[in-house]
Every structure is written in structure tokens, then in C-alpha cells.
């Protein structure tokens, strides 16, 4: 992931990612709660497919593959990519060396 300036985060869908080991995921009917025990941050995923993406990250070779495995269409990748970038920004999702 690269940061172009303080206001713009760019998500690299073509590398491997994972949940931070200190993050707890609690599925909910509407999506999921994510809590980072280190930062005390709480994130609410308001979409079950985003939860599926997040859960697939550890096993998929890239974030793009995780998105596709979760049933997203190509046209949905920008939107979900932005959501993933938010999670990276709050350290919920971190880079993984496969």
C-alpha cells in the first residue's frame, strides 16, 4: 500500500493481506464487529460480503482474489477496495508475506 498524500490512501489489491493478530472478529446479522485489542479501535462492517472478504484474506494470494472468492463482481472492487483501505489505515488489516 502506498500513501500518495495525507488525504489519499491507495489500496494494493494485488498483494497478500491478513487480519492483524490482535483483531477479534465478531459476526453479526448485519455484518461484523472488528475490535483491535492493541489500538482499542472498533470497526463495524455493515456488509456480510465485506466480512467474507476479510475472512478470506489470510488464505487468498491477493486481496483481489479474496474479493472474487467472496462473490464480488469486478465492478464492485473499487468500493470494497476502499473499505479494505480503511481497515489498513486503522491497522485492522496488515500486509502478509506469503
Amino acid at each position: 500500500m502506498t500513501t500518495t498524500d495525507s488525504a489519499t490512501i491507495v489500496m494494493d489489491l494485488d498483494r497478500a493481506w491478513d487480519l492483524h493478530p490482535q483483531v477479534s472478529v465478531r459476526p453479526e446479522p448485519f455484518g461484523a464487529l472488528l475490535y483491535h485489542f492493541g489500538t482499542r479501535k472498533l470497526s463495524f462492517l455493515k456488509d456480510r460480503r465485506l466480512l467474507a472478504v476479510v475472512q478470506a484474506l489470510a488464505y487468498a494470494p491477493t486481496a483481489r482474489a479474496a474479493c472474487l472468492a467472496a462473490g464480488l463482481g469486478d465492478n464492485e472492487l473499487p468500493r470494497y477496495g476502499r473499505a479494505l483501505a480503511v481497515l489498513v489505515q486503522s491497522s485492522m488489516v496488515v500486509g502478509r508475506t506469503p
Partner: protein
Amino acid sequence: MTAPTAPPLVDLFERGLDAPICLTWELTYACNLACAHCLSSSGRRDPRELSTAEAKAVIDELEAMQVFYVNIGGGEPTVRADFWELLDYATAHHVGVKFSTNGVRITPDAAARLASNDYVDVQISLDGATADVNDAVRGAGSYATALRALENLAAAGMRNFKISVVCTRHNIPQLDDFKALADRFGAQLRLTRLRPSGRGADVWDELHPTAAQQRELYDWLLAHGENVLTGDSFFHLSAYGEALPGLNLCGAGRVVCLIDPVGDVYACPFAIHDEFLAGNVREADGFSGVWRDSELFRRLRTPQHGGACASCAFYDTCKGGCMAAKFFTGLPLDGPDPECVQGYGEQLLARRGDGTRVPKPSGDHSRRSRTTVDLVLTRREAVEQRARPPVSDCAEHPLAGLDLTPTGKDTAHA
């Protein structure tokens, strides 16, 4: 086709969740202080307190339910002999802990212990930026105790500890001073709302902020409150215009609740009354059974109608304010908050007769003599040399089981 937008989080939470996100857990009603406004009317230990084993069983349940965070308080939670054991047990079982304390046992050793645990947060209670303002409410010497605790935490390298203030008529003029105090110790400031709960009902008329002070507080939070926590306790102030950060939602029975020292589960710590009692953790299905199936919580999770507030332009963010504040001032729950910023609560209070009886808290663990208890901090080895009999289950003394030496003199409650 455009993707459907999820509803706002507040709407989702108002329906309740399968488990709380966080909750308050009062470990004991025992306390060395006798604060005038204590929301739990604490002082005397209740002999029916949960045992260490029962408390661990609750923690096991919280872990299974994935409750991320508990706010441990009381009374003074650190006077429980098993406080550290329970703290370590919780953090070892994926339950983050913040505990609220008056600082009495935050010695340098305790501070070092806390600094080494990444899953514990500490909140020091302080209700005045100066000793005179603070001690008038919390008792002589309590300011000094709190400051010593802050010094010890800072010296131990503890990060992100908090100073938690209940905003009153006397300390609202000190908001800048509180911020300076927090900055001085590298602590985070937390400002919360006084509710007429517990002993708070007895001092509500003198202590609650004036209308002008509420506005002052609101303006201050907008201008200086970026790193100031509020526990979302001022969502009724959103009726001034811009909502303050937070969910702006009464979480009682929906995303939060209280477990009290004898295992009773209430909708929130400001509502310790049979009206808001959902059950007890000692029941067959434990805490999770109460959270999921109690009649009270089911009722709270159904859509609330605004009643008299529904036509107000600010109902969407104010939601009629605080249920506990209305209940303990004798106002109807489907009407305005007693501190409604539009003045509707005041009008309602003025219109009814002076003789209106208001609900009393269900329990009162206040110490009868209303004195603070002086403690002298001794070295551990001196304490361990004395053999002590096991604490009787019937012991009510707030210091039962505590390995510290009382000085034997009581100071008069200020």
C-alpha cells in the same frame, strides 16, 4: 444496479446485539470513599458479592460471547482482595479491561504492573481540578490520592490512562484546568454527565449544571474536545445543533449493560433500580441468558417511540435523552430529559407539584456514618507477616479481606 446502502449503525444497534459490545461491571459495593454523588450508593460491601470463582465464570461467558471490553468499577474495585487475579484472568481470556478507580491502591508497584499489561486501561476519578472543588464532593484527601496515582502511572510509563470527571456546577468553570492537568500527566481527559442516580439524586439539585453551563460545556467540547472522551454521555446536547462524536445512542440493554457486585444485571450503571433489573448471572443460563432473553432487554430493543418528544426537530439525535435521568427525577420515560436543552424538561418539572415522590434506588450500600476511611499504604512484607483469618461471607466492612492497615481515625466527610 446500485449497491444497497446499509442502514445507519445507530438503527442497527437500537435493535440490540447478540452480545454487548462492552459493559460495566461493578466488582464491589465496598469503597474507602463516600462521594456525595455516587451513582451506585457505594460504601459497604454486600455480603452476597460474587465469589472469585463466580466472577471467573462471568469472564468465561464474556469471552465466549466475545465481549471485547469491560469497564470495571464499583465502589472501589481495587479493594477486592482478588482484584489483580480477576484483572489478569480477564486479559488472559480475551476480555480487555478498563477499570475506574479513585487511585487509593495505585502504588508505584501497581502502576508498573499495569504498565506491563497491554490489555488494561485505567481511569482515575477526579471531580475537581483543584483540591477544594474535588474534595467537596469526593472527601478530604481524595484529590491528593488521585494525583499520587496519576504521578505513579506516569512514572511507570503507563500509556493512555484517563482522568474521568463527572461534570458538575462547581467544576464546569475548570474545563481548561482539567485539560491542563491531563496534559501534565500525559493522560487523556474524560468528561461525563452527572445523573441523578444513587446518591446523585440527593445532590442533583445543587450539583447538576445550569442551563448556561450545559451550553458552555457543549461549546467547549466542540472547540477543544478532539481528544477528550465523553462516553457518549452528552448525546442530549446534540439538540443544540451539531452532534458530538459518539454513537449518540442510549446503549442500555442494547449494546451495554451493568453487572453489579451481587450479579444483578441492570440496563446500565445509572439505572440501579428494580425497574431496570433484567436478571442475575447466577440464574441457570448465566449472563448470556439474561442478555439474550430477559423481558426488560427485549422491551428496550423494540423501536422506541418519541412520545412527547417525537415532534421535536432534534429527536433524531437527542432521542429524548437519558432514561435514567428521567426515571430518577420522576419524569415520564416517553418525554423530555430533565436537562433538555430546549427547556422542555424544566417546564415539566416546574408544572408538577413539589410533593411529587421520585423513585429511590433499589439498594443503598452507603456507609451509615458517611465518613471516608483513611488508609496507610504499607510495605507488602509487613502485611504478609500478619496472619489473618479468612474473611467471613457476612463481612460488610468495605475493607474486609484488604491487606492494608487502617490508621484507625476517620476524617469527617467534607
